[in-house]
């Protein structure tokens, strides 16, 4: 088969992996070698679904002996199977890289013959890239669940990032949907990788030149909307992954009806809004000092669909506001709706030089449309007062909520024209998210 057609099939089969990040690693190129990696990562294109293309995201093969219910490559699915040779893969990567199409390679694979056999194939390709072609670009390698630890170690020395997908939020769901995978096969490698990273860091403190073990850390991904777990459950899991496993990123993938199966919910559209809200909440966990328990609780286990998680938190904790912009701690500034990391930093820098009034804030580029209800400037309050909570909520919704949501969601939601009481809002939410 022509290489171009193989690329088509194997990219098509790889595209449900969300991560395309090329950040977190810095590899110095040297004269005569090809490539280098920059810590911030670079996007090279955006596909028709608006997602960034940074890496050549491709499978070694879509041949798979497993039968995960949600996956196009599962053994019981009737699709054409192809396989790249390590040489073909190297040829593609190098030539795409030389043309600046990509930042590097994201290599994954179906399980061909056995986990070890597959992992060895992948390692062979990456070894060629690194040693024969002296390739210093970014490499993200998927660890095949159940492969030997020795292979994980070897792969980690070659790749910038590794990931094992945790797939579903609970092991019960996993048993149901991916019967050949078990929690141990997924979480085991994660712990192992984490230990190796720590160990290697210790070594480097003594021997500066000892090789790096996945400098960009590990990430994982879980599917949202294929199983009945709440957002609280998901965020608590993510929080644990960040804290205990020092995961660099957790990715959420709105469940896509790629296959029909009686065990899976019949959804017409992937729950993109829910996915979007989870990313927002995830962001709050990682950069804003929030904990999952602050954002959600057992009475409110799912994220609000109308306003973003930070605004929702602020409404529920309205008694903590307003805060004085010239005195509030950085952590508190970050909790004001409408003030992000950049604005908070600007405020900190500027107020060291003079006390800021409302106009100063505007001038330094802080967007005050929502923030003004939560702050005072030199003791003065510029917001409105609200008798009812829903009035405040209304103020916090994006101005063209309906329009905006259409962008995120690909469909018009009629209920954005009015505000519904929370319970009803939620029940619609559940329907949309395809929860069973």
């Amino acid at each position, binding site marked *: 088969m022509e290489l171009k057609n193989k690329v088509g099939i194997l990219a098509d089969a*790889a595209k449900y992996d969300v991560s395309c990040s090329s950040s977190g690693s810095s590899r110095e190129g040297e004269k005569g070698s090809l490539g280098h990696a920059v810590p911030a990562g670079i996007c090279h294109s955006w596909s028709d679904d608006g997602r960034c293309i940074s890496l050549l995201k491709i499978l070694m093969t879509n041949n798979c002996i497993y039968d995960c219910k949600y996956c196009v490559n599962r053994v019981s699915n009737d699709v054409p199977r192809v396989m790249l040779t390590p040489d073909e893969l190297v040829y593609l990567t190098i030539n*795409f890289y*030389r043309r600046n199409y990509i930042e590097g390679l994201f290599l994954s694979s179906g399980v061909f013959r056995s986990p070890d056999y597959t992992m060895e194939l992948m390692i062979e390709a990456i070894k060629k890239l690194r040693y024969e072609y002296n390739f210093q670009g970014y490499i993200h390698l998927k660890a095949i669940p159940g492969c030997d630890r020795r292979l994980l170690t070897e792969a980690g020395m070659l790749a910038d990032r590794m990931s094992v997908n945790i797939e579903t939020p609970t092991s019960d769901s996993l048993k149901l949907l991916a019967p050949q995978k078990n929690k141990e096969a997924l979480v085991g490698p994660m712990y192992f990788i984490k230990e190796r990273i720590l160990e290697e860091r210790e070594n480097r403190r003594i021997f500066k030149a000892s090789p790096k073990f996945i400098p960009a850390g590990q990430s994982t991904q879980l599917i949202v909307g294929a199983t009945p777990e709440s957002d609280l459950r998901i965020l608590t899991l993510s929080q644990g992954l960040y804290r205990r496993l020092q995961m660099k990123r957790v990715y959420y993938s709105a469940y896509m009806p790629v296959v029909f199966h009686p065990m899976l919910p019949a959804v017409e559209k992937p729950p993109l809004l829910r996915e979007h809200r989870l990313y927002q909440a995830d962001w709050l966990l990682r950069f804003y000092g929030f904990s999952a328990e602050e954002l959600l609780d057992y009475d409110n286990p799912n994220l609000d669909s109308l306003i973003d998680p930070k605004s929702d938190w602020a409404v529920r904790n309205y008694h903590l506001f307003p805060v004085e912009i010239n005195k509030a701690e950085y952590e508190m500034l970050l909790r004001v709706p409408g003030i992000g990391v950049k604005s908070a930093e600007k405020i900190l820098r500027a107020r060291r030089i003079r006390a800021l009034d409302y106009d100063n804030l505007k001038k330094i*580029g802080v967007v005050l449309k929502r923030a003004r209800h939560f702050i005072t400037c030199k003791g003065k309050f510029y917001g409105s007062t609200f008798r009812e909570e829903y009035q405040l909520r209304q103020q916090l919704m994006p101005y063209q909520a309906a329009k905006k949501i259409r962008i995120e969601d690909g469909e018009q939601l009629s209920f954005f024209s009015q505000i519904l009481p929370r319970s009803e809002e939620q029940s619609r939410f559940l329907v949309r998210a395809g929860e069973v």
Partner: protein
Amino acid sequence: MLRYIFDGTFEGLLTCIYEAFYRRQSPDSICCWYQLQEDLISCCTEIRTDQEKADRVLKSIRSKISAKALDHAFHAYLSEIDDIGVWIYRYLKLGWKIGPSVDSCLWEDEVQMVQKAARKTEGECHRMLGLLRFRELQSGIFYAPMGPDHNIVSLLAPHFAKRLSDQPWMIHDVKRDIAAIYDRKDWTIALIRQKKALPLHGDELEFQRMWKQYFKSVAISSRRNLRLQKHFMPSRYWRYLVEKN
């Protein structure tokens, strides 16, 4: 109204700033001659670029304000936004008055204007690090044409000299007729007038086809969102993008 004109180089702009201080003048406008309309030429003071004066200003920015301020001024200059010259002058003047903290005085117009212009240049530069596409020519040189809003070719070159260090390449700003040329050792900037299409290497189109195929296959159709795509990748950049052609 006092108007300075200069030759369009960064050294020229710095010389203007030197002269403004030396002559105790405060120009209302500093522009380069090719941005000027004919009828205005008469009421201009022409400033001749002087490397020595420019160097003194450069040093003084570094030592009395900050290296960051120099970056801001240079990147703002590269933005080629109308009238940015005089804003750079005012920004530096304020900088010499209050020192390194000038960049925190975000409520001052000149600080805002210069930082905004610099951010535009830097933003486009970062975007182009990804969007630039090289084509292999018959001669074995990798050629990348582009038409950016700002004059970023000199900012792009160091990145690619590091990244594609073992292949000869050329980044051509078609709008400004300048190019960065790299010969596997060093890069230089040269004036270039190349309008004809260059002959491609025999394998080039095959790779373009594979890349297009990849680009198509990797999109998820149930998430199709062309507006979002355009938001990140505005259509003015499509002309030189292999996958969008």
